Each structure stands twice: as C-alpha cells, then as structure tokens.
C-alpha cells in the first residue's frame, strides 16, 4: 500500500527561536491508518502538523530542512490552495475555525473559496452535514451551538473538501468526556466508511488507543517512540516522556508482570475483570 504521508528528515526552526521545534523527523503513514501523536507540551506536535498541511513553510517562514510529501507531492512545492483540498486540519478550538453565521454556510466556506459551482457545493455540503449528523443544525448560528456541535461543524467543513488526509490537533481537549468519546467514535467511523487517513495529536490516550493503529511519541522535536499503542504503552519509557498511560493499561501491565493476564492487546476494563476473575476461579 502506498504511503499517503511521508515525512523524511524534517527539521524546522521558527525565526525568533534558538531551538528547532521539529528535528530530523521521519514518519510514513499508509492510506487509511489512524496515527496518534503524543508528547509533552512544547515538543513540536503542532508544528509537525503545520508542516503536513503547509502552514509551515507557507504561512510560518523559518529554517526548513528535509521533506514532507502528501500523496507523493512535496508540501513545500504545493500551493496552499492545492493543499487545502488534500489535507484537512481540525484545530483545537472549534470556535476559532467557524467563520460564517449559519452552519451550512460555514461548512461551505472552503468550497466557496475554491470557486466550486453552486450545485456541486450543495451536494457536498449536504453530504458532509449528513455524515456528521448535523443536517438539522444547518440554519443555526455558531453561538447557538454546543462545543461538541461546533467541533462537528468544523469537521464537516473540513470533510466537505474531501481530503485524503485529516489532521487533528488535540480535538477533544475542550470537550466533556462523553462528547470526546463520540468524536473518537466518529473518527473510527469515517476511516471505515470513507477510508480517510487520520493523524491525531492527543493527550487523552484512553479513548484513542482503542481505534489507533499506531502511536508515535515525540520529545523535544524528535520522534522517540513508535509502534502499536500496545507496544508503546507497555514500555516503561513511555511514562518518562509524559505520556498519559491509561489507568487500565497500568493495571494490565502490573498484572501481566505476575503473568495473571496476557500482554497481547490492550484490554478493556471488562476484559481485564473477566481475565482476572477467570484466573482466580
């Protein structure tokens, strides 16, 4: 399978900074994968995402080295216009990425900017709203929406552009636990139904590791760990990089040390309880 995203030896330093925000970074993401990116605050996660959708170097200039390719084309040599259609970027704060006064106009914002004809735009906007279950909010104003709804509207605006790759920067950090879980389920569903590839920066790993294919840990601009969520979370160094290892995984790890439960696969609380209960009977 071909890689939709290839990052090779990427380095980037902001102009007024002495340290590189991203340093010698490599990453390959095949089509249809969900990759989670974790790491302590300031380690360069957002900067890496900016380099994937072209904000770095097109909007943020600085010292740029290495290469990022999306769908085989170098980001550095593509225009923002072109990149906007291939990479969708969902930012942390949904409030600051909703521009228009009605939901449907906002979902259409990117398509309007690209000059998509009205009939086609209508189809794509309706499709995106249906996909995210917000069709009944079409005429609402942004200030009449809950945070979770705002997040969906912003994501609908991203999906209406039909990107091959969607990147999300801490999408659940402003959401309550239930809405956050819904968003994660939504990501899994979109991958299944549309085959979209996702790169997600997230601190709340308990929700995401269940749907993620891969977990990448960053520290001081470098990639320090990479593997399946199970591999990474079971290694002791994960905690030293400030990765919030889910409590249930910590328990499983302790029990696995005493061979009470298997180390294959991350277990849900129910599975763990069943395994432990079954072992003692």
């Amino acid at each position: 399978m071909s890689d939709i995203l290839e990052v090779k030896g990427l380095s980037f330093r902001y102009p007024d900074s002495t340290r590189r925000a991203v340093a010698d970074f490599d990453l390959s993401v095949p089509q249809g994968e969900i990759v989670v990116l974790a790491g302590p605050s300031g380690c360069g996660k957002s900067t890496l995402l900016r380099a994937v959708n072209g904000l770095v170097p097109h909007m943020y200039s600085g010292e740029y080295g290495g290469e990022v390719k999306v769908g085989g084309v170098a980001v550095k040599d593509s225009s923002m216009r072109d990149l906007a259609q291939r990479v969708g970027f969902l930012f942390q704060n949904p409030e600051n990425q909703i521009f228009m006064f009605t939901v449907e106009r906002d979902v259409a914002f990117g398509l309007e900017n690209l000059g998509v004809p009205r009939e086609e735009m209508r189809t794509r906007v309706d499709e995106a709203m249906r996909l995210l279950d917000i069709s009944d909010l079409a005429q609402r104003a942004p200030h009449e929406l809950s945070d979770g709804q705002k997040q969906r509207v912003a994501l609908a605006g991203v999906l209406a552009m039909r990107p091959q790759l969607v990147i999300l920067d801490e999408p659940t950090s402003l959401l309550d636990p239930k809405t956050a879980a819904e968003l994660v389920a939504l990501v899994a569903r979109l991958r299944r139904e549309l085959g979209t590839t996702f790169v997600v920066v997230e601190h709340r790993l308990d929700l995401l590791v269940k749907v993620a294919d891969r977990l990448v840990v960053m520290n001081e601009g470098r990639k320090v760990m990479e593997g399946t969520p199970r591999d990474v979370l079971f290694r002791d160094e994960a905690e030293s990089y400030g990765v919030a290892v889910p409590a249930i995984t910590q328990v499983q790890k302790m029990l696995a040390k005493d061979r009470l439960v298997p180390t294959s696969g991350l277990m849900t609380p129910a599975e763990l309880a069943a395994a432990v209960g079954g072992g003692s009977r």
Partner: protein
Amino acid sequence: MMWLSGGFVFRRGTSRYHRLDPRVKLLISVLMFVTTLIVRSLYELAFVLAFMVAVAAVATVLRRVLRTMMLTALFSAFIFAVNFIVTGNLEMSLLYSLRFVAIVVSTSLFFITTSPDELEQVMKTFRLPRDVVFAFVTAVRFIPVMLLDTIQIMDAQKSRGLELEKGNIFRRVRNMIPILIPLVVNSVVRSGELAEAMESRAYGAVPQPTSLVEYRSSLADKAVAAAAVVTFALVAYSFYYVLPVHFP
C-alpha cells in the same frame, strides 16, 4: 448598551418583511431616512413616524421599535433643549429633536430585520472587496464570543478581588485595565488561530469565490421596491407642493 442591542441587533423573524430581499429593505430604510431629512413641518414628520410604525407592525417588530423610539426620545430631549435655548422657536426645536428619533428608527428598522448573512449579501452587491466583506463578517460573527469572553474575564478578576464599581471615575477607568489586557491578548491569539484556519480552508484561492446560497430578487421584491420608490416620490411631491408649511 440596552438601547444598542434592542435597537440594532438582528433577531430571527419570519414576517414577510424579514423575508424581503435585503437590498429592498435597505432601499426602504434609505428612502425613509431621506424623507425625514426633507420634512419641513411637524405634521409631515408625524406622518413619517406613523409610516415607520406601520412598517414596524408589518415586520412584527413593533414593540422593539416603540421602545427604541422612547429611548431615543429621552436622548433627543437634549437636542430639543439646546435648540430651544438657542432659537426660542418651539416648533422648530421639536421638529429637530423628533427628526433625530425618526432617523434612528429608519436605520434601526433595517438592522433588526436583516441577518448578518444578508448584510454580507448587501455588501457584495456594492462590489466591496472580498477582504473588506470578510473582515466585517468575522467582526460581527465574533461579537457574541467577545462579549462572553469579557464576562468571563470580569468574573475571574472579580473573584480575585478586583472591585469594578468602587471609586471615582478615574479609579473606575483604571480598574478596567485588568479586564482589557486579557481581552486584547485573547483577541490576538484568536486572530492568529483564525488566520491559520482561513489558510487551511483555501481563503483567497480564487479571485471570484462562489456562494452556497443565491439571493435572487423575486417579482414580489421588485414590486415592493417599485412601490417604495413611488410612495417616496408622492410623499416628497406633496411635502413641497401640496401641504402648507408653517415656518421657514
């Protein structure tokens, strides 16, 4: 503040007037505005105000408009007083102060029945540059967000012991600084994030962006516009050639 939000902030409505083409609503308000300027007697002004009240009734915003009238009248009492002291002419002073009320009402009728979306459409018909229209759109879009921000910052600072209502006027102005600084910082952060999101959604990609919704004047819109122009012409004509004038 109350006066401003009651008199000028759009609230959704379903009346026939709300559903008019926004450009026709603008035309009606402009014509009413001009009429108040060419009015020469209290009789004529009374007629214009009655006409505005009728429009407000059709637009189902009568109560809001009457309230705006009352509040503006309080303010224009000042205009009356100054005029009367200077000129000693009761009728003229009354005319000037009430004319101010009429001007405010004609403007208010447009803004309270026209959604921000429609305002954008009106700006586009005047062929204003895309950036100007978009700047206006975002400014209006973020008014409720900034208001909420302000309230939250005020609450936060009050809970840290800031006393907004204490002291003389200078003290009070100085007390606003702990509110203003976080507000400005928030806005700067916000505009940075907005710029990123705009870039990521292809803002400015093509010189002629398209629009999801199409505003087309219906036959009814055109008829209303024509009726408005004819009414204006008749009214202006009778002001100058039919009705008597009481003072120069």
